[in-house]
């Protein structure tokens, strides 16, 4: 009987998908935070990675009386009309992980995907000494997050490390496609120096399995080691860093996503407003053309800080 109180209305939350580690962790954090009291949420809906379902779910949620919406539209264009509709109804919207192109949003909660690409590029560039050959396992080309990472990575490489050759491999977020293409590339260029995995959740295990099979999985520091930087910060990646199988990852903060999505949704219900500038949780709110964006930190995790308590994946381990 969540939300029987409903003093300031309830929160409607739509899950973009449930078939990945990352989003499942996000959901678990959401549910944990919801249990800690405060304005309640309607039961979560799931839009299965389909923007049309996002819209229909959000409508169903508002029909049931949601006064604030948390969503994660994986398509940033086709949510515009729905955002306009919600703005008309004066329902604040918190967009998690993606920044809608148009339509008013109360707050965007995300880590900067361009920053992911840049940080990865810089890390690889430094480790390889500015020369060599790297493979980039891209996601789905029509996903905004993937595209941001690719573009930032590419332009950084072009500008800062022109002597590094980048092989872009589109994979549709599919592990087996990534493995097949990486295997082909390794046949062509056995001298590969580095790999950038845009999504550790999808690519980590297939990549490790392939490198192991090809006897290319050498401990960091030894000759012939292929430098691997991943993205997401799921527990498996941290384990791999500890084991020296990969070098680094960018921790996409599932816990902070959940925490601040709810935080801003409740603030929206309460009618609070925010202004650009630094926040009390180590991030910065910036103004974007259709609202505000809280750019959460996405720490680079290496062997040095892999056991940091603050990393969400480490908390998850403990929670269980």
């Amino acid at each position, binding site marked *: 009987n969540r939300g029987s109180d409903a003093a300031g209305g309830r929160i409607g939350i739509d*899950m973009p998908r*449930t078939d990945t580690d990352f989003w*499942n962790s996000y*959901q678990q954090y959401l549910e944990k935070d919801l249990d800690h009291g405060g304005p309640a949420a*309607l*039961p*979560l*809906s*799931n839009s*299965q990675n*389909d*923007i*049309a*379902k996002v*819209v*229909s*779910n959000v*409508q*169903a*949620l508002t*029909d*049931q*009386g949601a006064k604030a919406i948390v969503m994660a539209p994986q*398509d*940033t*264009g*086709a*949510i*515009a*009309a*729905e*955002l*306009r509709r919600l703005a008309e109804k004066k329902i604040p919207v918190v967009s998690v992980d993606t920044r809608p*192109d*148009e*339509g008013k949003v109360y707050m965007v909660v995300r880590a900067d995907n361009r920053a992911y690409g840049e940080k990865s590029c810089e890390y690889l560039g430094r480790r390889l000494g500015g020369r060599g050959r790297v493979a980039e396992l891209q996601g*789905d*080309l*029509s*996903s*905004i997050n993937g*595209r941001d990472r690719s573009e930032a990575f590419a332009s950084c490489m072009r500008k800062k490390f022109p002597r590094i050759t980048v092989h872009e491999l589109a994979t549709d977020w599919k592990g087996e496609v990534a493995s097949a293409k990486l295997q082909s590339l390794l046949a062509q260029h056995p001298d590969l120096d580095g790999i950038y995995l845009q999504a550790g959740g999808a690519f980590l295990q297939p990549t490790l399995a392939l490198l192991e099979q090809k006897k290319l999985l050498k401990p960091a520091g030894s000759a012939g080691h292929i430098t691997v930087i991943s993205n997401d910060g799921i527990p498996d990646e941290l384990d791999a860093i500890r084991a020296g199988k990969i070098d680094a990852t960018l921790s996409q903060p599932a816990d902070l996503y959940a925490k601040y999505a709810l935080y801003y949704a409740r603030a929206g219900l309460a009618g609070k407003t925010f202004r650009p500038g630094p926040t009390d949780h180590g991030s910065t709110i910036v103004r974007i053309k259709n609202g505000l964006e809280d750019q959460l930190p996405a720490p680079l995790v290496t062997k040095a800080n892999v056991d940091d308590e603050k990393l969400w994946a480490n908390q998850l381990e403990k929670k269980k």
Partner: protein
Amino acid sequence: MTETASPPAAGAVDKAPRRGRPRLDPARWRDLSLVPVILVLGVIGFIVSPAFLTRDNLIGVVQQSTELGLLVLAEALILISGRMDLSLESTIGLAPVLALWLVMPAHGARFAGLELFPAWTAVPLCLAVGAAVGAANGFLILKLRVNGFIATLGMLTMLRGLQVGISEGQSIGNVPASFAYLGKADWLGVPAAVWICLALFALGGTALGYLRHGRALYAIGGNPEAARAAGIRVDRITWIVLAVGGLLAAFAGILYTGHYGAVSASQGNGWIFQVFAAAVIGGISLKGGRGTLFGALTGVLTLQLVINVMTLGGVPPLWTQFLNGMIIIVALVISRFTSGEKQD
């Protein structure tokens, strides 16, 4: 079973009742076989949430069905004439992108077009692209005589790839007003898309029921040789149906764009299974020559109601997909038993 199952002796006996109540024709039952399913869903919806029976919610459900509904309409026509077109799910995305690419300003916006034509031509261009895709499918299937399932599957991949290539994977916002109008306008308090979709279904249903070219689809799908022997231009009509199918998919793309405010890069991605599911649980045969548009429409509404009721009912996100699949199977089984016919 062979004809001896009903020898004239027995046939003569049960002929009287048959003539007496011609409305009990099983073919008619089949069209209504999903009505009980829809009623059950309605009752469940009413139980799980009072919001279900509100005008807003029901109109929402219908509006969300419009784009899928048009694809189902297109696929139903194609299936009835004994063919298949998987590429519809890509046409709904490609046609708007291509049309906008041709008309959008070459500079300024994030998506740079070619500015070859004035903005008002976007709608006709989009429809033309859709028809052209359908015609290309027709060429592969009817002239080169390759397998239609796989040819249109290849087209599905190719057209989606073309869309990604042209749009560079981005969504396209800021579409010309004329292009967005139909998808977002309200007429008499109800979204224009709903009126248009219903009108198209009614039109299609009438054509299939009462016009000779419409009836010809059933003959072609049921037995193409017999249709040819009866003087029906099988290839020509099939070709036209495929082109009309593409055109309807492009039109669905226009409604989608207006409805959601932008051409999404993944517009229609993965829809084709839903299209088939809606058509088949609605009574359209995959083997051709059987089914009605009314049945197809009930199929679409059923699928959309399922999603709506699950959301209202607060099904845990982890289990929505499971439940969704289960309900499709249950609906299929119910429609098989209420129609009383074996499917194949």
